[in-house]
């Protein structure tokens, strides 16, 4: 098999290099052409919640503080210094001399306007959990602001270093979210020069990117992001030289593309966690999930280790609790573990009154081969799962409206390295909570709103233990991501799933 793959690819390459078509023209004009299989509905960072939107936001805009992806230290970015004035007030000294892409100078008004606009529920930001901790932002003077939180919110800096970006106030007040999507203006290392919605985004290096930024000064002149829905088409383009960089390559294809001499394939674990959601709240479309034995049976039915080695990719790890192990507060100490044991799963199902299993709709939106592997495992213990594969937004709405009760879920925490960005989203009685356990909610609240790190850790651990004890979910694994790109690119992946093109160089 290996030999066939290699010889086929070698043949393809021998032939394609023999022609006049220049491979990877991007190197010549110092640009990178990349592809994604989905594009954000809006480029406004507060009005989309897809990964590529998060990635673009990091290129177009800037943050008050910046987290070093290697050391996880916070470094000055748009703010030069900061301090907690009290439990619920953060004060920032702002940098002078920074300008937005449209020439507007950066000052306190930008911070105040942006934060107050996006945190108001009536402005309907799509990413509520990223901003709803903000009570208000207050201008102290032209280069000093205070951010007040609704409750003590120790993870505030993490959010300000990730999903919370700063907009130019005059421009945003004039054009609003719609205009910000059509023609985004920020102060980041790249500026948008062309945006064809749902199709193409062209970015140009920001020559005036402020030199004091902790981020590397950008080197690549232009980035061109195209929407190419079909993975095969992306791979074909990459092999033929029409693209320089693709990501989210399936592990099987990634392994095979390693055999192609002109390509580099790298992978890394990401903060994205994968699990099976089982709706247990009242009105769940799958009443069987009310029985803890059924939930435990499903936990025992799936061989996560085998999936990791095959359809998932082995740069990831098996999870036992509902969070990413690198996040502050995440642990699996003391939590129940459910080993792979189909016989036990069958016995539990029989005990619960389903000796012949039952039929259920399993919703999913990405990594379909993984879903299908899980369907296979469930089938082996008698649960006949029908796949309902759809776009993320459609699946999320089905879960929220109670139409779906069983889903193959993933969550990237918006790359926020703190547990408050993951577990609470699904367990604090908000739209995405399909469990509604009062005890879990109280524990998570205690963890979210304490300023004492050890208090937080204990509260979070107890919440995670309770979730595992009740088998509310099937925690599966962290998701590895595979990048494939031309060998001439110098590219480093980071676990926060954000490729940093300002660091990328042509060799």
């Amino acid at each position, binding site marked *: 098999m290996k030999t066939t793959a290699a010889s086929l690819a070698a*043949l393809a390459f021998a032939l394609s290099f023999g022609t006049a078509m220049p491979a990877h023209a991007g190197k010549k004009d110092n640009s990178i052409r990349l592809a994604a299989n989905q594009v954000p509905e809006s480029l406004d960072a507060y009005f989309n919640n897809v990964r590529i939107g998060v990635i673009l936001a990091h290129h177009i805009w800037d943050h008050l503080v910046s987290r070093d992806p290697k050391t996880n230290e916070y470094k000055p970015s748009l703010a030069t210094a900061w301090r907690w004035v009290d439990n619920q007030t953060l004060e920032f000294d702002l940098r002078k001399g920074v300008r937005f892409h449209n020439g507007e100078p950066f000052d306190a008004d930008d911070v105040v306007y942006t934060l107050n606009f996006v945190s108001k529920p009536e402005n309907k930001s799509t990413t509520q959990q990223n901003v709803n901790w903000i009570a208000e932002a207050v201008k102290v003077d032209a280069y000093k602001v205070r951010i007040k939180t609704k409750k003590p919110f120790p993870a505030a800096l993490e959010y300000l270093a990730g999903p919370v970006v700063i907009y130019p106030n005059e421009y945003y007040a004039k054009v609003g979210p719609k205009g910000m999507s059509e023609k985004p203006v920020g102060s980041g290392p790249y500026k948008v020069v062309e945006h064809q919605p749902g199709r193409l985004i062209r970015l140009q290096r920001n020559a005036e990117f402020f030199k004091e930024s902790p981020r590397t000064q950008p080197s690549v002149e232009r980035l061109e992001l195209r929407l190419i*829905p*079909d993975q095969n*088409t992306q791979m*074909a383009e990459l092999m*033929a030289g029409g693209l320089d960089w693709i990501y989210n390559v399936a592990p099987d294809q990634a392994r095979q593309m390693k055999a192609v001499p002109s390509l580099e394939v790298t992978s890394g674990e990401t903060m994205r966690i994968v699990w099976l959601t089982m709706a247990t709240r009242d009105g769940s479309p799958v009443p069987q999930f009310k029985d803890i034995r059924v939930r435990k049976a499903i936990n025992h039915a799936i061989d996560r280790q085998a999936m990791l080695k095959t359809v998932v990719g082995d740069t990831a790890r098996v999870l036992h609790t509902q969070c990413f192990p690198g996040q502050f507060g995440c642990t699996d100490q003391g939590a129940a573990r459910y080993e792979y044991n189909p016989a036990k799963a069958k016995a539990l199902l029989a005990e619960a009154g389903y000796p012949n299993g039952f039929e259920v709709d399993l919703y999913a939106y990405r990594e379909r081969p993984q879903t299908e592997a899980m369907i296979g495992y469930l089938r082996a213990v008698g649960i006949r799962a029908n796949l309902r594969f759809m776009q993320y937004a459609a699946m*999320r709405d089905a879960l929220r409206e109670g139409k779906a009760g069983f889903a193959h879920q993933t969550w990237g925490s918006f790359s926020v390295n703190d547990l408050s960005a993951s577990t609470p989203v699904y367990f604090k009685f908000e*739209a995405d909570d399909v469990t509604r356990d009062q005890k879990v909610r109280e524990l998570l609240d205690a963890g979210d709103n304490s300023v004492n790190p050890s208090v937080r850790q204990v509260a979070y651990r107890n919440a995670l233990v309770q979730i595992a004890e009740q088998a509310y979910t099937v925690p599966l694994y962290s998701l590895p991501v595979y990048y494939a790109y031309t060998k001439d690119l110098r590219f480093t992946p980071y676990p926060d799933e954000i490729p940093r093109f300002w660091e990328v160089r042509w060799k």
Partner: protein
Amino acid sequence: MFQFLIRRAGLALLVALTVSLVCFLLVNLSTDVATAMAGEGATAEAIDTIRKQYGLDRPLAVQYVEWLGRALRGDFGDSLYFRTSVSALVAERMPVTLALGAAAILFALVLSVPLGVVAALRPGSWIDRLTLTIAVVGQAMPSFWFALLLMFFFGVTLGLLPISGSDTWLHFVLPAIALGYYATPAIMRLTRSGMLEVLGSDYIRTARAKGLRAPSVLFKHALRNALAPVVALAAVQLGFMLGGSVVIETVFALHGLGYLAWESIAHNDFPVVQAIVLLISLFYIVLTLLADLANAWLDPRIRIA
């Protein structure tokens, strides 16, 4: 002729109206529009407000008339996903699909008309059998499979043609072949049978008897008569292609109407879906109307029938 024109145009208008009704009902009967418009996690009051604000609490018939009225002025409302006007979105994507359709029908005609003519001149020959094979094979292959094979061979292995996108006319070559191939069997068959019929008719035999040279008979007289129905068929096929380009547009990452429709279906973005289905249906209706009128112009028998 005038009466025929009126009758035919009347039918087209009636069909167009019915199609618009179907488009409207397809969506309004199967989803709750207000909930979808309110968006994720909206409260019951918010949904109610939207229902009143957009008049969604009125009888369907009233809503339909209003929707149609706005549609006639080119206003299909806003896309729920892209949050821009549907008309602008559709107008932006339309040229790609039109170019693809035109290129595909051109390819189909260039391939199938000569083959059909040659097959008719030499019935039973190897070339006749070849055309038959092309026709039968063409109808039996899944289009996306054929498209991927084309892409792999011409795009990756030979590196001759661009694989995806719509930047230059070269980008349309592979998609046009993949899409146009499916129209060739029908066109080839019609050309062949039309030619056979014309070649066997009295006036061709007379022309031959008068001593006119073969090519002149063939091109001046026979082909012109045989091609009239082919043109009509090509118009119909073009209509089908505009509606059937979803798969090809997805494979080659051409951002035309087909791909937009598929994307919008996946996002529950029904105003866009409605607009596209209606638009493609209208294209078909207009194309067939024109083809019928052209045919009637060429062949007086139809007008009376």
